[in-house]
């Protein structure tokens, strides 16, 4: 087995991004994944930080925050690279680091995010007179009346109209957004005809669940060219077509760039010599296989993805390299029982601490491996869900790790 330039462990947003950036820099890359990663389960939007102007707010974060180690320049470059990859797959994203874009959620609230698929960008909603919220007969987990009622709180002066259209999806299983999106791919005209029948004008907006295909913007283009009103997709419960579109955009780019993607490959430990990682060990049903590399990027995620585990309380572990994991000590600091309060969750701060090169460090700040870089949800020191930084940390740490 030949030694490759870079091994990336993990097939979520951070892993895909790291593999793409490294491949773009003419590195030979092997991506090892176990499970299909977080993208099919995510909304498709990339949150960078919950602040009106994230770029300014990032400068005020504490020194141990991952963003301070990554640096604004890398965050900027990562956003540019990310948008470029998506655009190559005809999946245009809009947004920038200095502002937030509204997105309509599946329950009719507005959520703000820095990077948003063009199909979900609801900025223009404010300029519309009438808003149609369109449900699909038989589609699970999408309630147009509830969405309209909730949106009225944001836009009390607008006229709302709720419609239900029949795309003849019934007669099989309960239909999810993913099902509808797959059925509509290359078969968009039925939906276009139904939406045309609403007689919406260019003063109107149409809000639909995210069912405009699973490949980039292709299905959406077929429909928007036939409508005068603007059409917006909401977020949805998983499996999520906007996340799947993003996953497919990445996979297409990685395959085109010659990245070797090996599925079902559970990395159980590293092969290390002094302060260098020379390879990783994949365990299959009966034996182990060593994959060798000059550089390794760890993108296995946090608690939710098994990138960090905890068998005994106060003893979180990173299971592959046994890197020390930072966590808030003391049970009283571990969780905040008010789930929807305005305070973070202690346990969510759990993760690995690094130097500015994202090399893992022990409790004394000593660097453990020079050619191992830690990215995404593996990084500790902030509650990424509370501060809405998970996506931004994923793409920007991956960008930095792949370019060092």
């Amino acid at each position, binding site marked *: *087995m*030949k030694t490759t330039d870079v091994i990336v462990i993990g097939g979520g947003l951070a892993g895909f991004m790291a593999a793409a950036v490294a491949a773009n820099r003419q590195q030979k890359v092997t991506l090892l994944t*176990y*499970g*299909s*990663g977080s993208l*099919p*389960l995510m909304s498709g939007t990339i949150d960078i930080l919950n602040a009106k102007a994230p770029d300014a707010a990032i400068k005020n974060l504490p020194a141990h925050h991952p963003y301070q180690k990554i640096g604004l320049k890398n965050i900027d470059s990562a956003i540019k690279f990310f948008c470029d990859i998506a655009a190559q797959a005809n999946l245009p994203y809009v947004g920038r680091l200095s502002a937030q874009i509204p997105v309509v959620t599946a329950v009719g609230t507005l959520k703000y995010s820095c990077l948003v698929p063009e199909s979900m960008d609801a900025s223009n909603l404010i300029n519309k007179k009438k808003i149609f919220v369109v449900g699909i007969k038989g589609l699970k987990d999408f309630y147009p009346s509830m969405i309209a009622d909730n949106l009225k709180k944001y836009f009390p002066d607008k006229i709302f109209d709720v419609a239900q259209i029949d795309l003849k*999806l019934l*007669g*099989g*299983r*309960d*239909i*999810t957004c*993913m*099902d509808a999106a*797959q*059925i509509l791919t290359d078969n968009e005209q039925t939906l276009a005809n139904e939406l045309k029948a609403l007689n919406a004008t260019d003063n109107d907006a149409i809000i639909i669940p995210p069912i405009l295909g699973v490949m980039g913007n292709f299905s959406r283009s077929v429909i928007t060219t036939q409508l005068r009103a603007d059409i917006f997709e909401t977020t949805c419960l*998983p*499996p999520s077509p906007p996340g*799947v579109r993003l996953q497919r955009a990445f996979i297409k780019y990685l*395959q085109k760039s010659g990245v*070797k993607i*090996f*599925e*079902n*490959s*559970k990395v159980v430990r590293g092969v290390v010599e002094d302060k260098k990682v020379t390879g990783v060990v*994949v*365990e*299959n*049903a*009966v*034996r182990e*296989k060593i*994959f060798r590399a000059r550089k390794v990027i760890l993108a296995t995620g946090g608690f939710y*993805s*098994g990138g960090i585990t905890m068998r005994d309380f106060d003893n979180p572990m990173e299971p592959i390299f046994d890197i020390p994991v930072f966590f808030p000590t003391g049970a009283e600091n571990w969780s905040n029982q008010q789930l929807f309060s305005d305070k973070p969750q202690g346990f969510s701060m759990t993760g690995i601490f690094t130097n500015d090169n994202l090399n893992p460090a022990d409790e004394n700040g000593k660097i453990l491996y020079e050619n191992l870089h830690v990215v995404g949800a593996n990084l500790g020191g902030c509650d990424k869900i509370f501060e809405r930084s998970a996506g931004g940390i994923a793409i920007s740490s991956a960008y930095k790790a792949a370019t060092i």
Partner: protein
Amino acid sequence: MSDTTQAIFTGDRCLSCTSCMANCPVMAAVKEYRGPKLVGPAHGRMHFSQEDIEESLNYCSNCKSCDRACPSGVAVSTLNMLQRAEYYKNHPHLRHEDMLAHGERMANLIRKMPFGATFSNIGMSIGKTLGVFSALGLAGERDMPAYASTSLKDYFPRIKQASASKKVVMFTGCYINDNEPHVGEAFIKVMNANGYEVLIDKGFNCCGSPLVVTGFLDEAREHADNNVARILDWKKKGIPVVTPCTSCSLMLKEEYHELFGEHEMHEAAENVYDAFEFLEILQERGEFNDNLKPSAQKLLYHVPCHLKSQAIGLPAQDILEEIDGVKVQTADAGCCGISGNYGFRKDKYNISMKIGAKLFERVKQKDFDKVISDCGTCRMQIHHGTDIKPCHPIEILAEAYK
């Protein structure tokens, strides 16, 4: 490896995250299938009466995309197969299910008749023309795989090999034994070139994969017990069992234990290797014969689902690219759709062709010299969908040793 890899113990790890649904090729093709999560992991554990049957279970093709998509190590497809076996405890098998499950029995019968292979091949082509297969519930659009005039096991004693102290036993698999013995011959040639003598064990049965997917689980268990006992005998002698068929290697290495959970099954599995996995291990040890004749050719590689599931990388690509001038390009077009005998069923034919459409489109671009794939039914499906006949990667390597 602990007992936690037995499928029935993995269901509790399901978080209902829907990753399997987002990646299921059958769900993408038809809306009748309720999907991997709801069939094996959910309904399989939640139904409390015999009448409570999930009919859409029969849509699962056992391609194992769900297992690979699962972040929590749930053996989703095997849970589906166990559930299918439960169904057939109270429901009769249809005639075509019986036929498709018992290819080995049929082949053995034919081998006992003089000119049996010739006559059955003629019979199969007449049968196809007259619509007999379709009437039986088989996909009338397909050719049934033709029998070779002599099976590999019968022809084997006539193959000249130098005896060597290093030996492997070839697990031929039914398709290579009865339909494509030249693939087996290529394997023997490659192993000989690497200093190994190849043995054949006539006591092996079909691995059982066709039985498992059609719900003949008790018979599959008999095959497993027999094969496992023999593999353990070879293990005691220090002789590895190697197979050029990726569905056989997956069954022997992983699925026996997932299905039945006996410790010996895992012990036996440790002595089983996929052909190119074995060659790559030789290469790791510096024992691989790299005296390969250069050959300028571009190969399009369709990686079988059942190889992806084995987590061994792509050893065939790595080994073949040792040949000067060979460039291997992966097809990256997903599951071919046939999934063993699934695509041979009349009611699954269209699904199987719909799933394979992306691969057919890729192959039809014809920007390569040959298509390669390690799996026999994948090769049949590509041939059927494109009129381009693929070969096994071991055939390319055997050529390079000439």
